[in-house]
């Protein structure tokens, strides 16, 4: 028998899937015909999975330039009657927020699902925002899975419900769902393929004030119908235990932690549990039933007290006298765990946890004292390291000419190069969100009188950097804008973008060059450099920083991971650097202290290069004052 895969039409069979693969499988089973996204952890693998099987199932899949466009692509497909998915990380939904808030007035024709991948503990993000609030703002119903299996099943139902209620739905995943794994029972794959038809009807598609007022009423009516329906949806489940004094309401993945905690504490016969699969709107009848049967309630959910506040509102409306706990016992910050939920329930029930967490904490704290810290860092041979070194050297030189106290400011952006904020490079002073580096630089230019040198990656430039670049020309912000062009969306796993020349489905397309855009915007200083030609790079950066108007430097060299892969595929040997110990002054440590390359380590007081890591980029050889490093 052939190995089962994500595209096997084998209902009832089991596969071990990544949560994001399961979400993609759910969309396939639902007969999705259009999927669009912008890469972002922890959502990326959803579209990657769909892109791989796009041709098999006749799905149109694209990496859009940003989340706003991705959502609009999906919305258009829905308006034309097709089932469509837009997937993005939580902060990506902010970028799509504008169309989203009016799309909910439109509703949906073909099933329309927005997959929001939230990131409690901000494992790979700039914040911990809880997108259930965004959904609430737009009357968008939310399905929140408690397991990887449920994530797949909910996708199928989200498309169905979206069509049934003519409203767009949000499925809220979290890092431990999307990057969780589980055995998943496959379902049937829908064979239905619809033809997109755009029926002109301005009454629900053109948003002037008149239409907005009218459609807002219709949206609220749709939401009221959904509110009534969720009580009987199988994702919401109430298990009442006779005589239970404590009720637990657990939303999404927290349900799995709560179940394990209850078992650990041996409270199965003493606690009633309400599992919430639709935090918005809540199953009101089930909530009331639980509230009326117990003395106290604990709401278990990750991040904000979203369910908790709604449960309190329901209790208040019906005057149900019950003590409702939530964020007074469950942490507001970070992701939950069986331990955290166990501790909260143990406090409420005055029971004892089966593991001595205090003792383990003590051991963990003690061993942490003898362990080295291991923060993420730029890879050996990464072109960003060379770019940062050249940019900072040039910045320092120009600043010195301007005065003793002058220090350039380096606004940054989102991508691998964000890691250059770490020692020893430290070339990022402020970093907020996609595209903010150039925007912040615009503001700084008008309030400080030191050089402002902003950097952005190629994919991020296309995503959100261009308007701020135009703004710099328009409003005469004298800033240096550095575009770090490594020909990939590297941080999320090398997805294609408008500069790469191919699409998500592997088709060839026009490769757009950032320097052409810069010139077209009226930037008078536009130069492209190779960061590994250090001397020339420093000189170019210096001239850009000194230029009396906005300047653009494109630092272009392929991502080291891709470069190595391509060289291996072509049968080329990967080079490496060597330190000639008789020439090396081991006290100087310039290579270590200026570059922070993980391949250069100290062994017995000597600097040596780990050949299993080095790829021979040669930057260390260029900066070594003793010329002690050779590239082979």
């Amino acid at each position, binding site marked *: 028998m052939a190995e089962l895969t994500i595209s096997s039409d084998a209902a009832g069979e*089991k*596969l*071990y899937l*990544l949560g994001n693969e399961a979400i993609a499988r759910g969309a396939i089973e639902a007969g999705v015909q259009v999927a669009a996204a912008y890469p972002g*952890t*922890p959502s990326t*693998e959803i579209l990657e999975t769909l892109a791989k099987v796009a041709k098999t199932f006749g799905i149109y899949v694209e990496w859009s330039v940003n989340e706003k466009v991705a959502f609009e692509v999906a919305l258009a497909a829905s308006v034309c009657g097709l089932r469509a998915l837009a997937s993005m990380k939580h902060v990506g939904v902010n970028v799509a927020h504008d169309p989203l808030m009016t799309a909910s007035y439109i509703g949906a024709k073909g099933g329309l699902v927005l997959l929001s991948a939230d990131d409690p503990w901000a*494992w*790979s993000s700039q914040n911990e925002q809880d997108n259930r609030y965004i959904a609430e703002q737009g009357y968008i119903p939310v399905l929140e899975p408690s*397991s*990887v299996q449920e994530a797949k099943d909910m996708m199928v139902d989200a498309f169905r419900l979206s069509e049934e209620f003519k409203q767009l739905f949000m499925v809220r995943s979290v890092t*431990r769902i999307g*990057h*969780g*794994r*589980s*055995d998943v029972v496959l379902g049937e794959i829908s064979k239905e393929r619809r033809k997109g038809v755009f029926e002109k009807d301005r009454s629900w598609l053109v948003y002037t004030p008149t239409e907005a007022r009218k459609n807002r009423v219709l949206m609220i009516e749709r939401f009221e119908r959904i509110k009534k329906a969720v009580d009987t949806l199988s994702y919401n489940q109430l298990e009442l235990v006779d005589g239970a004094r404590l009720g637990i309401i657990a939303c999404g*993945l927290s349900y*799995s*932690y709560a*179940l*394990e905690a209850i078992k650990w504490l041996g409270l199965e016969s003493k606690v009633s549990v309400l599992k919430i699969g639709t935090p918005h709107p809540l199953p009101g009848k089930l909530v009331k039933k639980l509230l009326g049967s117990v003395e106290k309630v604990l709401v278990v959910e990750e991040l904000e007290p979203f369910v908790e506040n709604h449960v309190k509102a329901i209790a208040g409306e019906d005057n149900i006298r019950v003590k409702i706990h939530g964020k007074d016992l469950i942490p507001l910050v970070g992701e939950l*765990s*069986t*331990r955290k939920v*166990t501790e909260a329930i143990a406090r409420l029930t005055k029971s004892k946890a089966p*593991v*001595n*967490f205090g003792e*383990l904490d003590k*051991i*963990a704290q003690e*061993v*942490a004292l*003898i*362990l*080295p*810290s*291991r*923060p*993420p*860092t*730029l*890879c050996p041979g990464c072109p960003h390291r060379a770019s940062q070194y050249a940019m900072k050297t040039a910045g320092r030189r120009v600043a010195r000419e301007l005065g003793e106290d002058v220090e350039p400011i380096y606004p940054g952006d989102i991508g*691998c190069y*964000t*890691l250059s904020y770490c*020692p*020893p490079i430290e070339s990022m002073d402020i970093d907020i969100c996609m595209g903010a580096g150039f925007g912040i630089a615009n503001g700084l230019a008008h309030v400080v009188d030191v050089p402002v040198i902003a950097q952005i990656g190629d994919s991020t430039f296309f995503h959100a950097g261009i308007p701020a670049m135009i703004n710099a020309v328009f409003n005469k912000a004298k800033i240096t804008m550095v575009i770090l062009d490594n020909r990939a969306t590297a*941080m*999320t796993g090398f997805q294609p973008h408008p500069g790469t020349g191919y699409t998500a489905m592997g088709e060839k397309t026009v490769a757009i060059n950032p320097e052409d855009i810069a010139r077209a915007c009226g930037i008078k200083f536009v130069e492209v450099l190779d960061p590994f030609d250090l001397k020339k790079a420093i000189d170019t950066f210096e001239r850009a920083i000194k230029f009396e108007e906005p300047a653009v430097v494109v630092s272009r060299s392929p991502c080291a991971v891709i470069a190595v892969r391509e060289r291996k595929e072509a049968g080329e040997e990967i080079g490496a650097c060597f330190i000639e110990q008789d020439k090396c002054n081991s006290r100087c440590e310039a290579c*270590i*202290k200026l570059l*922070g*390359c*993980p391949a*250069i*380590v*100290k062994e017995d007081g000597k600097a040596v290069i780990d050949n*299993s890591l080095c790829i021979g980029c040669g930057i260390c050889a260029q900066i070594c004052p003793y010329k002690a490093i050779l590239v082979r």
Partner: protein
Amino acid sequence: MSELLGSAAVKDGLKVRGSEVLGMAVRGGSVVSTVRIGKEVYGPLIPMGKCGVLVGMEPAEALRNIAYLSKSGLVILNTKKIIPYTVSLGQSEYPSLEKIIEQLGRVARKVIAIDASQIAEGAGSPLSANIAMLGAVFGTERLPVKVETIKGTIRARFSAKLAPVNLKAFDLGYQKCQQALR
């Protein structure tokens, strides 16, 4: 490695939950992957004090996660150190292997130290160190997954050229662990 294990467990009809860390942390940072196998499984994360086998692909990283280990738990330790750049910069120190093993012994029932890179080279490819470690995990005889099933999964997943190398690395890792436990 955890994905191979999980897939094999599913083939044996077991319930499996796991988690991975992807994205920014992968760039040279600490990463943890979990696999939970059994008849009754809950969330993807292993609670503190409940891990049966802690597989340290790097010594310091094994010790960093000691609090997850149960009192009856085993540690399979790859002895190959990867020195973080903070050590080269003089910001932190890397403890000796002996110290790490001693500290792991505060919780672990036994620490099985293995030079997986050397085993992998002996098998024919330095890249099969992970598979050697997987073999060692099976060598504990604590997994409910059949050895034949995981071998079948390895055979299916690698090319005809790489499968034998990986199967050899698996066997060598398995034997190393068995010797250490004897």
